[in-house]
């Protein structure tokens, strides 16, 4: 079935709600502060849980002494790895991450024990009274130290967690064909998610079951990990995901851990346990954006075609591999950027250090990769004496083009249109010279991005949704795709509303509850709206079939003539003949038309050759282009983003306002990585764990974001053609700003973040 053709299937020419700006059903509660998040469900007096963590970055645990801590008044229980009944292994991709460390610690913050107590005073007092005797090992604090010949091993089996490679065409031959060549090394650092809501879980035990209300990004992964730690079946763990105050990937990784701490302790204690992180814990101990060092060599001929790339990626895992195999693969697979390059040689490795581990974060490797790739494209264009946009237009992927992995893109490729649109909207041609005004100088930069949606290679991928038509015509919608601020479930509701012809407000979106919601896989990889939406469309089409059949019987017209719109079923040929959905719903029960349906959607198969890295890696890609105007104060080194022109090919904008919301947030978060955010470490300890010194952009720093240009190249397997938006929105922001800084100052900065003192020093050295 071609899901981008649903409208034609419905026999309609105009959309009812899809493609229009509709106020989200959760907006009012959120604005009024009435929306309930995990901590809001915890009753007063609930036992509290704190994770006791290692104080050193690397060492063997010789002894854990709990007696004194257990005697602290108010302490109800303390558990270590020795108490774990199921598996004590919670590693995501590799089995390198203990649930509770009882042999060795790998970073300052590794979980060692779970303390349960009646209040925070007792938790703090008990933390002071736990004594762990370590045999300290030398810490490994950067990738070079980790790769050194005599480096201490972070885990058995070596400090390289995983490697990747792609060999396409003949890279050396490609460089021989090149007329110009550029090479550089790029560094992209840790970034903290800084979601407003910190990690939280509230667990209520029964004898052989536990229910957890928590935040996260995949209730099903959380269920799987909790069951694994407990040694239980999936149906013994019930995860209810509360509304979640920001995820950005971080809660995809932390959700299972936090829920498992609470569930495990609640089961041991036999009473409910609440576990809510402080900001300090969240910044120090949760996974960060993986730092990456990318060495990039590229060549182009005098006609302005890129002939070859050679890319070497070193990813810093930190203490655990976590998602690094997928992250590194994504960087490897996207290495050429959204361009057709026939000769590619790419190698990657993910390397352990004894620091806070990296993990999922919006962009998933493509921020660092596109920072490198798009800096290189800019440099090539300057070296060739070509306009940066003209040069890119000669190389961008088009329909029928082949990606870095030699995947043929047969449809849904809109990068050329995006780039031309931002070129025109920003009046690019008249801004080719930087403009000086006193101490300030303004420049324009461009950046492109593409991002494979959902999971890669041959990982199975599916989604699910269910719908109940209640006897009064109200609709209950269940999806395992979670609400983390982005609005995907409301997007699903709009898709359903379009198909069954009701007001989106009449569709109530249930909180995901693993006891009654089908596994929809995680809300990550920008898949929530796309895959979740297709499953919603499948469910809605089934329900529509039931509704139409019942209406045909009632109205005594052939079912082919029935349409559903504005809360009624009617005869297309005599629109006056109809019945309200309210009446229809009751008749469906009375006459035996199934009022409850599931939609299950399996994504198209992908495959790849592990030897060459070539194959079909992602079922579809979203494309984005941005232009930015940046102003640099040459006296102070301060850089301010003044204006941004964004364009995106998202297949079909189910709700343009939500696309705009994603892009506006992404501009701010991307700008943070480029200009100000930095996790500061001292001997492996994070020393800026709060909003005071981990500085993120404020609303005052937000540039003028020009109206978002939406390019719609529909995707065959997305409902109404929709593709993912959340991650593609942020990726191009990074090189756009760095290229604009270069345009303004003539200086390339290859390490992020680029802070005022860095710019000031470079300008000073350049004789400014």
């Amino acid at each position, binding site marked *: 079935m071609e899901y981008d053709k649903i409208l034609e299937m419905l026999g309609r020419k105009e959309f009812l709600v899809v493609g229009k700006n509709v106020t989200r059903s959760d907006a009012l509660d959120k604005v009024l502060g009435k929306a309930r998040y995990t901590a809001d469900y915890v009753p007063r007096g609930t036992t509290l849980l704190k994770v006791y963590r290692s104080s050193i970055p690397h060492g063997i645990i010789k002894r854990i002494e709990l007696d004194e801590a257990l005697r602290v008044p108010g302490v109800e229980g303390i558990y270590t790895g020795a108490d774990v009944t199921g598996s004590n292994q919670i590693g995501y991709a590799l089995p390198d991450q203990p649930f509770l460390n009882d042999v060795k610690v790998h970073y300052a913050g590794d979980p060692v024990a779970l303390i349960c107590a009646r209040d925070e*005073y007792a938790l703090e007092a008990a933390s002071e009274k736990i004594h762990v005797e370590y045999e300290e090992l030398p810490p490994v604090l950067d990738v070079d130290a980790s790769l050194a010949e005599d480096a201490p091993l972070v885990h058995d089996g070596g400090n390289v967690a995983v490697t990747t490679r792609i060999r396409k065409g003949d890279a050396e031959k490609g460089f021989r064909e090149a007329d110009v060549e550029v090479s550089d090394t790029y560094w992209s650092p840790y970034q903290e998610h800084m979601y407003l809501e910190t990690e939280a879980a509230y667990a209520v035990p029964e004898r052989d079951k536990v229910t957890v209300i928590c935040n996260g990004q995949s209730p099903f992964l959380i269920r799987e990990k909790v069951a694994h730690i407990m040694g239980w079946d999936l149906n013994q763990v019930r995860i209810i995901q509360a509304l979640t105050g920001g995820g950005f990937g971080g809660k995809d990784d932390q959700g299972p851990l936090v829920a498992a701490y609470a569930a495990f302790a609640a089961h041991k204690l036999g009473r409910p346990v609440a576990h809510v992180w402080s900001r300090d814990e969240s910044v120090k101990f949760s996974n960060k954006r993986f730092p990456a060092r990318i060495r990039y060599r590229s060549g182009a001929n005098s006609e302005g075609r890129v002939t070859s790339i050679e890319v070497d990626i070193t990813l810093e895992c930190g203490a655990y591999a976590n998602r690094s195999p997928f992250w590194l693969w994504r960087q490897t697979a996207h290495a050429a950027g959204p361009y057709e390059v026939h000769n590619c040689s790419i190698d990657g490795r993910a390397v352990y250090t004894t620091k806070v581990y990296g993990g999922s974060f919006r962009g998933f490797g493509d921020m660092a990769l596109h920072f490198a790739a798009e800096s290189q494209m800019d440099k090539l264009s300057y070296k060739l004496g070509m306009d940066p946009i003209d040069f890119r237009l000669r190389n961008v992927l088009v329909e029928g083009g082949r990606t870095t992995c030699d995947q043929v893109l047969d449809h849904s490729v809109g990068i050329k249109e995006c780039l031309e649109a931002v070129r025109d909207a920003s009046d690019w041609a008249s801004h080719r010279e930087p403009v000086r005004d006193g101490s300030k100088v303004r420049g324009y930069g461009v950046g492109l991005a593409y991002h494979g949606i959902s999971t890669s290679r041959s990982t199975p991928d599916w989604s699910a949704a269910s719908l109940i038509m209640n006897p009064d015509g109200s609709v209950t919608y269940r999806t395992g795709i979670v609400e983390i601020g982005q609005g995907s479930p409301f997007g699903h509701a709009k898709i359903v509303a379009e198909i069954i012809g009701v007001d989106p407000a009449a569709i109530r979106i249930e909180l995901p509850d693993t006891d009654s919601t089908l596994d929809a896989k995680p809300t990550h990889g920008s898949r929530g709206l796309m895959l979740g939406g297709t499953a919603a469309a499948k469910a809605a089409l089934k329900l529509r079939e039931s509704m139409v059949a019942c209406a045909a019987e009632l109205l005594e017209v052939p079912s082919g003539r029935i349409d559903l719109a504005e809360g009624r079923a009617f005869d297309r040929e005599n629109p006056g003949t109809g019945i309200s959905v309210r009446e229809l719903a009751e008749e469906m029960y009375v006459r035996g038309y199934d009022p409850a349906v599931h939609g299950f959607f399996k994504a198209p198969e992908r495959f790849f050759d592990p030897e060459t890295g070539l194959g079909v890696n992602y079922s579809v890609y979203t494309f984005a282009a941005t232009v930015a105007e940046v102003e640099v104060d040459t006296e102070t080194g301060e850089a301010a983003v003044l204006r941004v022109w964004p364009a995106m090919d998202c297949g079909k904008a189910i709700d343009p306002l939500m696309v705009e919301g994603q892009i506006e947030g992404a501009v701010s978060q991307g700008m943070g990585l480029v200009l100000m955010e930095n996790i500061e470490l001292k001997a492996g300890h994070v020393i800026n764990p709060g909003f005071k010194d981990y*500085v993120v952009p404020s609303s005052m720093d937000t540039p003028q974001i020009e109206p978002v240009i939406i390019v719609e190249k529909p995707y065959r397997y997305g409902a109404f053609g929709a593709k993912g938006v959340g991650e593609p929105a942020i990726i191009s922001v990074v090189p756009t700003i760095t290229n604009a800084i270069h345009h303004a100052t003539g200086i390339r900065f290859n390490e992020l973040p680029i*802070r005022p003192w860095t710019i000031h020093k470079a300008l000073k050295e350049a004789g400014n």
Partner: protein
Amino acid sequence: MKPLPKFKYHAPSTVEEALYLLATLDEAEPVAGGTDLVPLMRDAACSPSNLVDLNNVAELNYVREDSGYICIGATATHAQVASSPIAAKAPALVDAVSGIGSPQVRNRATIAGNLCNASPAADSAPPLLVHEAEVAIRSLKGTRIIPLEELFAGPKLNTLEPDELVTEVRLPAPPEGAGSSFKRIGRRKAFTLSVVSAAAYVELSGGEITEARLAFGSVAETPIRTRAVEELLRGKALTGGLLDKAAESVKAEVSPITDVRGTAEYRRDMCGVLLRRALAEAAERAR
């Protein structure tokens, strides 16, 4: 989340009562806005057994002009000072207090508290230093008035005795022909600590600088005046050449450090940049 350490709470309604509590209670700290004290308590950097809340002491809440002084009561908030027509006579101060923290912080945090916290980065300090502010300090033993500079003993250290309370900050109402300005560099445009801050005060007569005062934040252990550069400016005409010389000289008079907010070299260079900008604006306002 880390809980606050336990403490006893007192809410006197007169200054006398507050002074009595501070003199008689063990480990007592006065609190008004609490925007510095509460985070310190949470981090266990400060754990008073008794908190003496000044918010009910009506006689401490004012911004008024008295005998040629702009007087700021101990519980006057940044927002109060920012919107006060009296404080407007010291434009550097208004510039600084309008930009501290967020609107929520400015509605709670007091000028006196900002000064007593003795952060080298306190934005209210440089403008008050160039306006030659004084601090009135009371205890049961009596009242003493000291120049603001003498309140600062080091990073986060003040010179108050445990039984003493700052009741007022006051600055001479500037004469005709005076102007002042405050400039800062932060890590973003709002709600962030200053990486460097600078205040300038000048009195002009004809084209000549008859009085010049400069102060800087975040470049030494306390907010500081740079008197050698001031001396360089006095009695001269404000020319580009003089500004160049002052901007260069100031770098020798400051002693910044490198930390998560910036490098020492950067801060030193920025003292020169901010000095020029603040002096130019102060002179503009003086004309």
